[in-house]
């Protein structure tokens, strides 16, 4: 397929004498910070920090920041920069998989050193605990949270004879079984209608998001083969078998299509889904509502800020973070870019209580705020990232290949155990 040798091979097949040696000599060792001059570099991804607030930091805190928006696989880029000890940012956004950094917690500054504990009670406790490594070192400072809710379209619910008022929908769809029953009703009324755009994202992950137990306990025992996970698995399989999934890849153009054309008139998702739903389906504005998710309160996503050990002025970095994540500014971020605060006091801020035209004038903080406060503390382990793809893979096999669900479950658990053995955990 390639001429003689591959393109990469072609490039690397050889090498550069004089020029190379000169450059070799010139290049220094040790880590270079990603920041230029005196500014502290901040790595974040689109929509994770309000650009307005970032712009205010110098004026309000007296710390100059150099924000850098990183595209693609954020964590991979960050880990690669740590491994390369080059261009490591001073401050970095950390996603909800904060626990994967725990084995390398020494790469971060312990934020307790700067008095983080003093403001602890302003933040949701379960959220705060997530950023603390097993050895007590606090590497992630709470940013936003991802309380979940049921999103549904009133126009289509009405057509299918389902209730449309949030309180009624909530009462009618209290459990996942209710949700499945509603799905069948939708399907009977409008052929081809689904209750999930993608099984893993909208069902399996969401049931797990409501569970207080995840895949490992704090003692590093694997608990992903227990009833709480099997429950999420079984509900997913039911959705698949009832043809209630649209089988799209989440947040792709395909997903936009099913959100617009009404093929998927409801789904369970985190508060930040609106950031995608709005631009994906502008024509559906005003038709959506949210209410408590079937199965209860859950959290999916939400992020943190950390300071790396390469940061030359960690105290300044901490002060900048404190400013960005204060109660007032979290409320501002919600209004600005729909980041849901991890500071419960913000929920009463008038700017959070504005009626939202996308949801037909609903005050959604009532739904998401109470969900956030009801989330049960749960433990993410450093290995969850390695564990969870197996469920997704095998559920995918059930969905697209028609694989026997029990066989898939066994293969899934087997694969996870092999992976954990390889990692040296069990």
């Amino acid at each position, binding site marked *: 397929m390639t001429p003689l040798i591959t393109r990469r091979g072609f490039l690397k097949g050889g090498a550069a004498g004089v020029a*190379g040696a000169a*450059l070799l000599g010139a*290049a220094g060792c040790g880590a270079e910070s990603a920041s230029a001059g005196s500014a502290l570099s901040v790595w974040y991804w689109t929509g994770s920090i309000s650009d307005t607030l970032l712009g205010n930091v110098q004026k309000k805190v007296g710390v100059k920041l150099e924000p850098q928006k990183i*595209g693609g696989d954020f964590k991979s880029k960050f880990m690669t920069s740590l491994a*390369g000890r*080059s261009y490591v940012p001073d401050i970095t956004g950390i996603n909800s998989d904060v626990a994967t950094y725990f084995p390398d917690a020494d790469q971060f500054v312990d934020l307790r050193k700067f008095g983080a504990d003093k403001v602890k009670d302003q933040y949701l406790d379960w959220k705060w605990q997530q950023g603390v490594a097993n050895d007590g070192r606090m590497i992630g400072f709470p940013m936003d949270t991802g309380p979940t809710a049921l999103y549904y379209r009133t126009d289509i619910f009405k057509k299918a004879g389902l209730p449309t008022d949030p309180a009624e929908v909530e009462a009618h769809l209290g459990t996942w079984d209710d949700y499945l029953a509603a799905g069948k009703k939708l399907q009977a009324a409008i052929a081809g209608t689904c209750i999930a755009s993608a099984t893993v994202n909208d069902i399996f992950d969401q049931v797990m998001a409501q569970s207080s137990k995840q895949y490992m306990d704090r003692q590093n025992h694997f608990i992903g083969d227990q009833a709480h996970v099997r429950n999420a698995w079984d509900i997913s399989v039911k959705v698949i078998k009832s043809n209630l999934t649209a089988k799209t890849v989440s947040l792709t153009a395909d997903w936009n299509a099913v959100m617009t054309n009404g093929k998927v008139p409801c789904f369970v998702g985190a508060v930040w889904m609106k950031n995608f739903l709005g631009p994906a389906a502008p024509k559906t504005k005003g038709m959506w509502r949210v209410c408590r998710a079937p199965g209860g309160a859950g959290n999916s996503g939400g992020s943190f800020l950390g300071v790396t050990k390469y940061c030359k002025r960690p105290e300044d970095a901490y002060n900048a973070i404190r400013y960005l994540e204060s109660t007032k500014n979290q409320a501002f971020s919600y209004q600005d870019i729909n980041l849901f605060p991890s500071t419960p006091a913000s929920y009463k801020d008038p700017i959070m209580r504005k009626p939202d035209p996308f949801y037909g004038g609903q005050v959604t903080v009532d739904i998401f705020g109470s969900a956030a406060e009801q989330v049960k503390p749960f433990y993410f382990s450093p290995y969850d990232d390695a564990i969870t793809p197996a469920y997704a893979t095998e559920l995918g096999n059930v969905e697209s290949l028609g694989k026997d669900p029990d066989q898939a479950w066994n293969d899934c658990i087997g694969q996870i155990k092999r992976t954990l053995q390889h990692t040296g955990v069990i």
Partner: protein
Amino acid sequence: MTQARFARVLAHLVLIIGALISLFPFYWMIVMATNTTGDIFQFPPKLTFGSHLLGNIRNVLHNIDFFGSFLNTLLVAVVTTALVLFFDSLAAFTFAKYDFPGKRVLFIILLATFMVPSQLSTVPLFVLMAHIGWVGSLPALIVPGAVNAFGIFWMRQYIQGAVHDDLLDAGRLDGCNFFRLYRQVAIPVLRPALAFLGIFTFVTVWNDYLWPLVVLVNPHRLTLQVALSQLNGLYNTDYSMVMAGTLMATVPLILVFLLGARQFIANLAAGAIKA
């Protein structure tokens, strides 16, 4: 007569369909880049050019540092190409026209390096780059690719046929040393071969993806391909904007290629036959 004519029409028909398939993705790319995302999602999709190209380009420029990435890519491609042309042709000239102790062994080693897939060394090369502090910088892309076995091998084949020994002999009698022979006798004859290897290298470097994706951790120093994949990953709900970026990254290269296409294709074929 009619049968021959029929055959010819059929042949053209097959070729035209093939050419249309070859070119269609470019056409579709332009259609998408000139329309809005909404136009693309409607059914049936719009298949004609729209008027939103400038707006889409503006969005691209707003979302990624397009010109920065463009300049980085150009820099890497130009410098790598220049080094490859010089080092490859020089080594090829030596292998083609001189004898020296160890030549056979050295040439076999050169050929043996073909056998090693580059992916084998992706991980250790990254670690090496980390140690010498090149991660995130452009030398990490340029230096490992500054000379290559393929170019030397291909050039050597070419030189054996193109550079005549009597010219070299005459040059030697005039007292030319090795480097002058290379510059004044070999280089003028090698122009077409250098043009081929130059375009080949330029296109390859311009389109390279895996290694830049791995090693370019500095967000201010991306190549176009990496920037483009980030654009796609970050904003894949805004298709027409992503397509505008795709178009902007593709057009310059196609133009470079079209400038030397005829020559390039002829050389490509000749190279394969000899190899």
